[in-house]
């Protein structure tokens, strides 16, 4: 096989959740739901009929749709298909909209959400406090969005859409990605009830500005698999967890690094202590051997990402928007031989726990939070 299998397109509509009109929070997400529902014809209907894979990301100022077709040119005219996507006329459209509103309302409450998504959301609350902008809105604001509002937004945004493919125009040809709004770290403990045998805990620590490639390499030092520090700390030294994740948020001015673990509810507090301790040990940096292995893993992961069905088109999009691409990240990492110590900001940690906790577990979590803060 000499050519990459399939073909992908990304379509950006230039309005995100921060562009929702007053009183209509959640409108961008609702419009995205319409544009992803096969009953609304156009792109989602074709995607469903032909087995395309799709992906949607909603950020502050952009609603981004990705399409992959097994035929290289299959999704070439997807913008025309998006243009034709709309709610059915009359009561049928009202009925579809009501269903999409209900689905979004369920998502707002976290119903049907995966535990990893729930712990991520709880960590966000613990880090930043109640979000000023609800990405999905509220049942009340969703009710205020009419079929006419959505049709008008659709027409306007599709006329301003940008389409990317793997050979998109060179750097800076598209509107640059806006800087995320600066937020003030609050820190705190957020415990949420969720049924099931497993609990999830998470710790997120704010850091002083650090180059993104340093943060990414430190995430690999902690390890996304069994070769890192976190696996040894959680499984072998303390015998606490089954799975874990480590991630960083490298935004300038509000960078942070964090980890989550899947544990039995009675081990939640102990796992929080291990996560916090292991994260804070990054203050000592990492030696050449550990850095070298982390760089190898990062490089392997980034190159695999580029080979993903959406990899080439997303790289072209980053390039066109003047964002750091995988190649730039790889070049920056190649220059790091030993990782410097991470400077943590003198702010309280964000700690979250999601699970079927008894009062005793909650009290232990409160105690351990006081201990590590």
């Amino acid at each position, binding site marked *: *096989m*000499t*050519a*990459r*299998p*399939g073909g992908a397109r990304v379509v950006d509509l230039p309005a995100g959740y921060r562009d929702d009109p007053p009183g209509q929070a959640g409108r961008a997400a609702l419009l995205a739901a319409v544009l992803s529902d096969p009953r609304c014809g156009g792109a989602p209907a074709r995607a469903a009929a*032909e*087995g*395309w*894979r799709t992906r949607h990301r909603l950020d502050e100022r952009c609603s981004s749709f990705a399409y*992959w077709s*097994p035929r290289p040119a299959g999704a070439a005219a997807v913008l025309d298909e998006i243009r034709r996507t709309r709610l059915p006329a009359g009561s049928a459209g009202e009925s579809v909209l009501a269903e999409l509103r209900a689905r979004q309302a369920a998502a707002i409450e976290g119903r049907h959400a995966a535990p990893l998504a729930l712990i991520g959301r709880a960590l966000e609350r613990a880090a930043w406090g109640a979000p000023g902008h609800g990405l999905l809105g509220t049942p009340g604001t969703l009710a205020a969005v009419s079929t006419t509002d959505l049709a008008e937004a659709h027409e306007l945004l599709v006329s301003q859409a940008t389409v990317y493919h793997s050979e998109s125009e060179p750097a800076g040809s598209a509107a640059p990605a806006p800087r995320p709004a600066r937020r003030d770290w609050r820190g705190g403990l957020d415990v949420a009830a969720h049924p*099931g*045998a*497993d609990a999830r805990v998470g710790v997120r620590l704010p850091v002083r500005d650090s180059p993104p490639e340093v943060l990414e390499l430190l995430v690999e030092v902690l*390890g*996304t*698999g*069994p*070769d*890192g520090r976190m*696996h040894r700390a959680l*499984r*072998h*030294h303390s*015998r*606490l*967890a*089954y799975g874990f994740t480590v991630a960083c948020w490298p935004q300038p001015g509000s960078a942070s690094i964090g980890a989550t673990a*899947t*544990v*039995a509810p009675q081990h939640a507090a102990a796992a929080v202590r291990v996560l916090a301790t292991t994260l804070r040990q990054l203050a000592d940096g990492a030696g050449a*051997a550990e850095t*070298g*292995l982390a760089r*190898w*893993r990062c*490089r*392997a*992961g980034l*190159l*695999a990402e*580029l*080979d*993903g*069905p959406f*990899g080439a088109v997303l790289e072209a999009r980053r390039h066109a928007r003047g964002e750091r691409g995988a190649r730039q990240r790889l070049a920056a990492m190649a220059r790091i031989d030993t990782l410097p110590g991470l400077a943590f900001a003198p702010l309280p940690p964000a700690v979250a726990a999601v699970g079927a906790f008894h009062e005793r577990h909650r009290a232990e979590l409160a105690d351990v939070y006081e201990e590590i803060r």
Partner: protein
Amino acid sequence: MIRRFESGGLPVELEVLPWACSFGAALAVGCGSRDDSAGREGAAHLAEHLMVLSDPAAGPGGAPLLAVTGIDRTVYRGVGDPDDVGILVRRLLDIAGGRCAPAGPDVFEGERHAVLLETSRMDHQPLLRLGPLLAAAAATEPGLDAIAATTTESVRRVTPADVAELIARGYSGTNARLFLAGPPSVIRDVEAALERPDTAGTTTPHRPVAAPDRFSLPGLGDLVAVTLVRPRNVPSPALDALLGDRGPIVGLGTADGRRPLGRTTIEGRAQRVDVAVWRGDAAPFERRFAEVVAGDWQALAEASASPPRGGQTVDGQWRRATPIGRVSDAADRCVFFPAEPSELRQLALWRVTDGRPECLARHRLGTERR
């Protein structure tokens, strides 16, 4: 283009992909939960956990692997840097030969604890065990309930010696397959990594252990299920559609407001069993089952199926769109010897009362028309 090699008895396939940026590798070892000794269920899973660990100070390390213990095989997969594929290839050669860093008590008990957490999920959700139980009852190939037979008690009984014995019995170059995919630039590095004199260790004849007695799931009742036994690795859009979401059994049930409580596929070495389970009365399903087997099942199934595109499903194309996807697919599909082919295609209807499946009807399907 696929290049074939052998390293110490281990068959290796390298797919050269001119468009690839990354390197993917997947090792399938013909040793899975079915090879657990009776009373030590969980040993193969624990072996997998210990195999993926590496101590960079003790040998090749740094390449994170994802691993899954199946019924007849354990698959290890990972992505690598094409500029230095040796780390990943040598790591997988060590695993194929049953070599892993010695695990001290902390490591062994830590990994046992992780396996216990995974196993306890089945205790909280007994339905997770029902699919394998039904598959074992439906298939002629033994041991399809091996994973579900694992309990927290059996995992607690597993000793380091049990794991070592299982590795010595089941891990060898001749009982494994290694699949690699990457850009042309990796060919020389791959060849060099495969030239190590001790590549796959000594080969030990594979000696499967007899499957344990069938277990039951007390407390699980008021359930009805349909199983479809079919040959593993023999593509059949008609059989896919027969128990598909829109097919003549599941689809009609959904139209009546009966959505499946759960669905799964259990794969052995030669057979696979698709399972769908519903809550409630078996009578409507008995009628539907009788209609399907009395009529032209293939026509009924195909009428509900999406037309295949270009001879290959979109799912398959998506799965194989990356180097890691291609090698993973190959590792999941490869056939180990001695794989006695099975031609059985059989649909069965079951009622589950107090955790025991009772067969209400069984119908052997004819070979499909092409």
